[in-house]
């Protein structure tokens, strides 16, 4: 049964929605994703987060690769860069390095980030480039009509693994923790409120923040990563989880059966920008920094 909510009158609600100002962060065009796609929740979360964090539209850049999720920039009223398959992170790094004043959010899917673009991720993490990477994980290749992806479950059936997927899925959280990302969290498109909160924290974090977002593909995955199943699988990180403890974070990340939602790991350390600045400082002794 759906959760019952007392009927209200929309006019009583509208002021609250309008005053929130988040609508200003949406583009005119309606998202073209399949009806029911979890990405809707994410785009709504990002727009709201940008507003709540007080980031002006023109000071935000969304960079994406190729895939369903990478259509993201078209639906957000900020600067956007829709690049090539798997190449979102290097482009985003370039943008950020050129102008530290910008808030840069890279968006991509599981195929884009962990298959063809998998080679770029470790380096983005270890450099601690001050951007946010939203990994929209639907465990499938949606844009090419539903083939196996690096996060597809073992035994999952797709046109390219018609009998079953012989591989086990990657563990992205464990990887990025290992790669040294300075902020790691996980959210679920089916829990919009929590999703919003995590997007806000990720954007607010100084350094490379990685938010892994579980999201169903309603068109090509009718059996595995559905809302119905995820609703039952996901859990919150245990109360009192210490985000400064990498080992605990990794331990939690290792449980892929019951994905935990929340902030796994948080750490303050110099960003790529700061490192470059300090090099300049060392070299010239001056404080004349580029990219301002």
């Amino acid at each position: 049964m759906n959760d019952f909510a007392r009927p209200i009158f929309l006019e009583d609600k509208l002021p609250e929605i309008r005053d929130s100002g988040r609508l200003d962060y949406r583009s005119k065009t309606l998202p073209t994703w399949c009806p029911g796609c979890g990405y809707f929740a994410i785009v709504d979360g990002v727009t709201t987060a940008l507003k709540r964090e007080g980031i002006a539209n023109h000071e935000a850049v969304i960079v994406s690769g190729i895939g369903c999720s990478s259509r993201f920039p078209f639906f957000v009223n900020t600067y956007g860069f829709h690049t090539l398959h798997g190449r979102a992170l290097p482009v985003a790094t370039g943008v950020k390095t050129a102008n530290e004043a910008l808030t840069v959010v890279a968006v991509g899917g599981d195929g884009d980030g962990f298959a063809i673009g998998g080679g770029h991720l470790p380096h983005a993490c270890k450099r601690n480039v001050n951007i946010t990477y939203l990994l929209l994980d639907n465990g499938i290749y949606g844009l090419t009509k539903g083939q196996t992806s690096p996060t597809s479950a073992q035994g999952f059936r797709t046109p390219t693994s018609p009998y079953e997927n012989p591989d086990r899925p990657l563990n992205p959280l464990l990887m990025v923790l290992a790669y040294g990302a300075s902020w790691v969290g996980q959210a679920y498109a089916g829990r919009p409120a929590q999703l919003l909160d995590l997007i806000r924290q990720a954007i607010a974090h100084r350094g490379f923040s990685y938010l892994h977002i579980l999201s169903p593909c309603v068109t090509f995955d009718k059996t595995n990563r559905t809302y119905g199943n995820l609703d039952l699988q996901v859990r919150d990180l245990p109360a009192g989880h210490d985000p400064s403890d990498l080992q605990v974070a990794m331990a939690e990340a290792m449980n892929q059966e019951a994905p935990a939602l929340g902030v796994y790991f948080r750490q303050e350390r110099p960003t790529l920008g700061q490192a470059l600045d300090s090099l300049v400082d060392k070299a010239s002794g001056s404080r004349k920094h580029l990219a301002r």
Partner: protein
Amino acid sequence: MMTQRMMPATDIQIAICGSAGDGTIAAGEILRNVMAGIGYKVISFDVYPAEIRGFGKCIARMRITTEQAYSLKQRSDVLISLDDSHAIPHVGEVRDCGAVIYESGSIRPVPEGGHISAHILPGQLPYGVPLRELSEKATGANKSRNIVALGYLAGLFGLPAQPFIEGIDGKFKKKAEVARSNEAAFQEGYAIGQATYKLDDVSFEPVARSAGNGARVAMINGNAAVVRGCLDAGIETFFGYPITPATSIMERLAAEMPKRGARLLQTEDEISAISATVGAGYAGARAATATSGPGLALMAEMLGLGVIAEVPCVVFVSQRGGPATGMPTKHEQSDLHMAVYGGHGDAPRIVIAPTNVEGCYRCAGKAFEMAEAYQVPVIVLLDLYLSNRYETVSFPARPPFEPDMTRYAEKGELGEGYKRFRVTEDFISPRAVPGTREGMHVATGLEHNEPGRPNDQPENHQAQSHKRHQKLKAALRHPDFTHYKRFGDEGKVDVGLIAWGSTFGECLEAMHKARTDGIRCAAMKVVMLSPFPAEAVAAFMDDCAAVLVPEVNYQGQFANLLQANVGRRVERLDRVPGTPMPVEEILQEIRRLTGRIEARRPVRVA
């Protein structure tokens, strides 16, 4: 009645137009399979957008004939609209006295003129059907409008229902539930269609089923034909990465190969795909990968290794609109340069390009033969139109492919002094695959000498480069393969068409039309692009007062290749509409050329 007087043989083109998610393509698939099953010849081609759902336009066009056709017609006989906003611009393509079938109801208000009924021409016959309501009535949901429309079409034109029911079952065989509700939807539409008085003059004539000489007739598209060729040629390994429009090759192989104990793996990208393919080829397997332009670009370097290490492997490339991400779902023939010349260094390879679906089958199989026979990567150039175009093809009862054409090293050649890269009189070296006794050697990307040791001496590099180029000449005489073929009028002609890939279909159509206009006309298809059959082409050009080369790219890449090899000028017709070349344009060009010739031809004196 009178319709029979009008068209003795069936030649009907049906266009189904809708928004992505309306099931446009699915309906087209069922329809063409059924028609082919009934025994008609079918050519069909779908146009769809990149979005999975939402708002892109989808069109499934098919030409259903009793005589073999070579391309789609400019005008359709029937248009089915599943989405007015997309279909309205196509109403004009329906011929006089043709039928337009559309959704009569409407959920939300439409602006004045926004309904298709405002655009149907007086000469066309409108059939309004409450598709959505019927779908909801039959299935409780609106998702089967496409099948209802199919049912209506079948009922209206008096086609038998049973084949459709089977077709629907076939399409949804995995989901009995869906199949059942779609059957209901079909019947709902069929009943209404039958009850409707047919006013248009479109009519399906019965077909005489072709007597089978053991041949297997199938309704199949280019990619599927490639797969069939691979399987009949005994492919052993395949590594790939999904990319439009080549993906379905991999998808089908993934389903078929394991049944034959062969192995397929989806790699993380094209770079890894070609690497694994070369590795497997080195190990002696019949190995292939499939990709499109962007993937081929990524593979360029590894292909170079395949050339220098003389490793047999096959790369299927289905071209799409470029450059970069370009137009992933649009048709183009602009990767010929890269296929023939692409990559660094002198890296000669074999490039063949089929011109129709049946050719896809033969080229696929023959590619493995050639790769083995000449120890080189073979690129089979398809294009989006050919990959997705459906034709009825009859396959020979027995696979027409050699199981193994490797020139293995003889006993005497093996052992201590075995020269893997020996320069022989036909420049093809004796080969030993891992596991062969006494055949141990090193294949390397470094320039090497006959035994395979690194060597950068000028005479060695000269000799090895020479052999790598010369050995391919033999491919021009590869047995039991159509490298090129001439059609149309014999002897001297006013206009000769030379074309490659799917565009040759349009050329053939244009040629036939031109000849009925009394123009002396011939057409030559060139299947082998590298090495280039220069003599044959030159000979054909000798017969032609004018030579026209139509192709779907901006640079005239094939014309360039031809001129470079034959050294003579040709008339070019280069178009990049993202769709097949309109037959009309070719025809106009032919008329223009002949017109000019008429002008030049000296007046005969009696």
